[in-house]
């Protein structure tokens, strides 16, 4: 069964460094998402991406964050200058159709630790 994959599974970085989290969504999906989950807290929406542009973003997704779909398969989240509070699990998700009413398929996550 097709699945969303994410790399790396764990990333440790120093405060102020740039990180890129990578995702390969399911191949025929059209909507892509990033969510994050701080330890012990809710899964929080960061950004949605459709037709090669951001369709919606949360207030968390400030100028330090960016997303890109550099080719037909990868979907990346970049944090330009990491802060301690960026430490969290980051989940990529994708949806097969228009993205407006269907279930989202989540990847296994990348645990980001900022020291």
């Amino acid at each position, binding site marked *: 069964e097709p699945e*969303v994959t994410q790399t790396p599974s764990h990333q440790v970085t120093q405060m102020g460094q740039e990180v890129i989290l990578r995702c390969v969504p399911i191949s025929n999906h059209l*909507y892509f*998402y990033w*969510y994050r989950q701080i330890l012990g*807290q*809710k*899964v*929080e*929406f960061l950004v*949605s991406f*459709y037709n090669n542009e951001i*369709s*919606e973003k949360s207030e968390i997704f400030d100028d330090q964050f960016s997303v890109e779909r550099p080719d037909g398969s990868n979907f990346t989240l970049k944090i330009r200058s990491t802060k301690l509070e960026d430490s969290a*699990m980051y*989940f990529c*998700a994708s*949806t097969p159709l*228009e*993205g*407006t*009413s*269907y*279930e*989202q*398929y*989540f*990847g*296994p*996550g990348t*645990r980001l630790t900022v020291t």
Partner: protein
Amino acid sequence: SQKIEQNSEALNIQEGKTATLTCNYTNYSPAYLQWYRQDPGRGPVFLLLIRENEKEKRKERLKVTFDTTLKQSLFHITASQPADSATYLCALRSGSSNTGKLIFGQGTTLQVKP
């Protein structure tokens, strides 16, 4: 303000019993509501979706109800098994969002004892 609330206390039940989890929301007009399962250190896994015009949905041992008047969804697992032990997340798609953005509750941890 908008809120989605799930019982933050863990639910402990005996194998074979029915587990019932609650999701309450305020100040939302959700187009649909979804339930996900999350195991420790893993991503959420979709279980069931119920639309605003549906009262009940079933899938194998799972049943979801949706009461837009009470602003509540109930999630039932019948004949529960130790393998059902996990955290269960309720998620809403706001009617004002066209992008499928999901808003999650904090989850309820279910522990099924053999």
